[in-house]
């Protein structure tokens, strides 16, 4: 059986209520689901002996600006066993701007989630150390959100006195 079918069958069998959606774009297989299931599904993808997505390559987000569910959190995970990359997505709305952490599944996602929090302001529930990673801690804005101006907000980042 092809790996894509295996993934979709296994996920549908184990998480029937997760509102799973499968799609394919430019040879990358996408899985999208309700954000409540992010932790159990990621744990399953990593620990299932036939899948073994051991490597969390990247976590980031997309700001759709005017869409109802404003943000999409995107996880790029990789199976060394199959040499296969999977894109995992979950929608997050601005009014309820949080999602569960996967740092208990992949330790490396600790800093990746901090970066996503720093740039988009999406909070990761149960994260061990959710602080800004690039911007100064007292900074009040989220630079990769669409409403943030390219040159920043004057005076928001202090300069040394001349």
């Amino acid at each position, binding site marked *: 059986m092809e790996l894509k079918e295996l993934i979709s069958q296994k996920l549908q069998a184990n998480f029937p209520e997760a509102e799973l959606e499968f799609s394919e774009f430019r040879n990358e297989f996408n899985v999208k689901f309700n954000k409540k299931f992010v932790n159990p599904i990621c744990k399953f993808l990593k620990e299932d002996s036939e899948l073994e997505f051991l490597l969390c390559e990247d976590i980031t987000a997309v700001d759709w600006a005017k869409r109802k569910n404003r943000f999409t959190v995107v996880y790029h995970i990789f199976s060394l066993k199959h040499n296969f990359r999977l894109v995992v997505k979950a929608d997050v709305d601005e009014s309820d701007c949080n999602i569960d952490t996967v740092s208990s599944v992949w330790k490396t996602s600790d800093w990746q989630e901090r970066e996503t929090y720093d740039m988009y302001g999406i909070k990761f529930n149960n994260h061990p150390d959710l602080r800004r990673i690039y911007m100064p801690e007292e900074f009040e804005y989220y630079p990769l959100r669409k409403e943030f101006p390219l040159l920043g907000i004057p005076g928001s980042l202090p*300069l040394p006195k001349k």
Partner: protein
Amino acid sequence: MGLEAKLNSEGFLVTQLDAVVAWARKNSVYPMPMGISCCAIEMMAAADPKYDIARFGSEVMRFTPRQCDLMIVAGTVTYKMSHVVRKIYDQMPDPKWVIAMGACTSTGGMYRSYSVVQGIDQFLPVDVYLAGCPPRPDNLLNALIQIQNKIGRTRARDFQNLKLPELNVIQNN
């Protein structure tokens, strides 16, 4: 006409103390290599035998600001880094000079962005702006020569009114 010929024929020479001090000072400018990004590679190339910054007496790149006269800010300065650059500048003893090396340092360059300071003259007094992305090592040597000319024009009284923050505190008490 050289110095040796003059000393050989007459045994002494007459000049101003200011001129001697400025001459000595400008020919031993110790740079502080504030290498933050890719301009630092060209700065290192300027120190190698091909370009040889030692010809101008500036081969002593000190990694402690306490022994430096000239800060070469070579690279993109972010808002977060600006406090570090300023702190190191403040630790250098007077008199001191600054070269803003490259487009990023002088104006923000291609990083027209919220995170990059659009020119370090917003928080540092800059003596020479150096164009290029990155500038070639010979361009850096040219900037150094300009600094040397500037130092050569200084007189001791130019530094007499320098403010010393520590002294002011004592006087106020």
